[in-house]
């Protein structure tokens, strides 16, 4: 746990995810739809395994009840240059 590039970033994330899972469960969104896994840049196979497993779990849970059409953001006509 200790080797986060930003010292404690992963510790903070861990707590927030633990909290969010419970809150989502409470409002009726399955906790499994949110998953946190520590994978270092050297652990490519574990990363692939994790993502595939996650996709299968989501497929089993069925489409998200919150699914809706998503409009892209309209950038303002004028943008800052300098």
């Amino acid at each position, binding site marked *: 746990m200790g080797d986060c*590039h930003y010292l404690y970033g992963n510790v903070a994330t861990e707590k927030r995810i633990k909290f969010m899972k419970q809150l989502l469960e409470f409002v009726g969104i399955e906790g499994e739809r949110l998953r946190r896994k520590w994978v270092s840049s050297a652990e490519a196979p574990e990363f692939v395994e994790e993502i595939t497993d996650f996709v299968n779990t989501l497929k089993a849970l069925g489409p998200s009840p919150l699914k809706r059409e*998503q409009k892209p*953001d309209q*950038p303002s006509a*004028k*943008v*800052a240059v*300098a």
Partner: protein
Amino acid sequence: MAGKKKKEFEELRIGVFICDCGSNIAGHLDCKAVTEYAATLPGVVFAKENLYTCSEAGILEIQEAIKKHKLNRVVVASCSPRTHQPLFQNSCKSAGLNPYLFEMVNIRDQCSWVHMQDRENATRKAMDLVRMAVARAAFLEPQQDIESPLTPRVGVIGGGSAGLSAAEGLSRMGLEVVLVEKNKELGGLLRNLHKVAPEGVDASERLEGLIQDVSSRPNVKIFTGAELKSLDGYVGNYVMNIRDGEGQTVKESVGCLVIAIGAIPLVQKGLFGHDGKRVITQMELEPILKKGKFDAKRVVMIQCAGARGDERSYCSRICCMIAVKNAMFIKKLSPDTEIRILYRDMQMYGTEKEKMLWEARGEGIRFEVYDPAHPPEVGDKAVRLRQPLLGREIEFAYDLVVLSTPLVAREDASELSQLLRVPMDQNGFFLEAHAKLRPLDFAADGIFLAGSCRYPATYDEARSQGLGAAARVGTILFKDKLVTSAIVAEINPETCVGCMGCLQMCPYGAISYDQERKICQVNEILCKGCGCCAATCPSESASLRGFKPQQLMSQIRAVMEG
């Protein structure tokens, strides 16, 4: 921070460059289709595919396109930003475009290389990635790198072998040094050593040479019997408040600091019956040896006394060498003294120390292994030991027992660590940025460490770490100004309510509270751009430049749209 210039606004004109990377990308996805798709995205006025964007030809292509099509945003879809982002940003800069209006998309390592057999999906994924980048590019804001002046002076705390070596190195490199030593004279632990292993040169002779050299140098200012009271400022612009020998407070402005306060040998009453007379520590043995005559006939040394156990779990690295050195010196003074060293592992690492061990055995010093589960017991006449090799208890009568105790952190080390806001490990030694790759740096920029305050070190290790720290200081102070990336956090003073939520989440102590205005502020030099404050601020007053809510949300919504 340079005052905010008046913002110039232009109509959004994005240029997208898709790289084939030879066959690495083009071989596994349809770059032409991705380029055509990119041209259709909102705000994109120019899209081009080329063989190698990172080659000279590719760079020229970007620079000409910026000028010809008056691009104010550039997106390059190629390899990982780690390889060529600085190269592309600099080429945008030389073409007159603010380097922070550049966005890079990895369609190689994270797309073509991992979806080699699935060309169709890889192409679609590349299109999604490019769409996300273009969506974010639209909301990028121009930034300026942060520059701050550097004071070419260095503060060295601690005048032992490590501190003196750092001071010598720094002054020889042409940097002014302010050396602060707590005791009346310089030298640290070396002062009370008798001989220095392995050549057995006299410690004081080695020390005098070093002290003479450092104190004679014109650009070294030495405060003895002095202490660092407090430290203000940040890397490049520290102000040391020193209480000098006469108790006055002296202000010294320095650019960097080297911490070399060393450590002290453990002296623990009752440890193996320690009484300072018949059961002493190696450090208490040194003055006896200095007297030049030695009368005890039977000496027993016990290694790992108070170390590698529950109380202190670490191995103090150098006490085996000290024990063997002192044992060999006793043999020189009184050859018929019987010396027995009870050890768990003889930590004689490296070429010189192992040779010492062989010579010691040659001189008849006996080494006995003991099992940590049954440590030796020091009676008032003899030391009882359960000898694993023989499988039974044996006793050695003794006149003197010498305990090899570990070096432990100084009591005021934790106070200094608070003052400098640098971390310590559970044994009270300072915690360096990275155990293997940055052993002499702290996580916070501008402060370095050397010698036993990091971890017990022999004399030559302390010297090379001191010199090493000097080189690390050089990496900062040999430049005329300190340039840090503009990707740092900022806090909106109008909406901040001073709840300090961000201050307590900042791993680098880069946020401070302003008493009068009752708001929090970011010190841009110390900020590493990790975004912890932005993530925790409920009113979005704290935000990370380049990763504002608008920029991130537009990217997320772009991927959903696919």
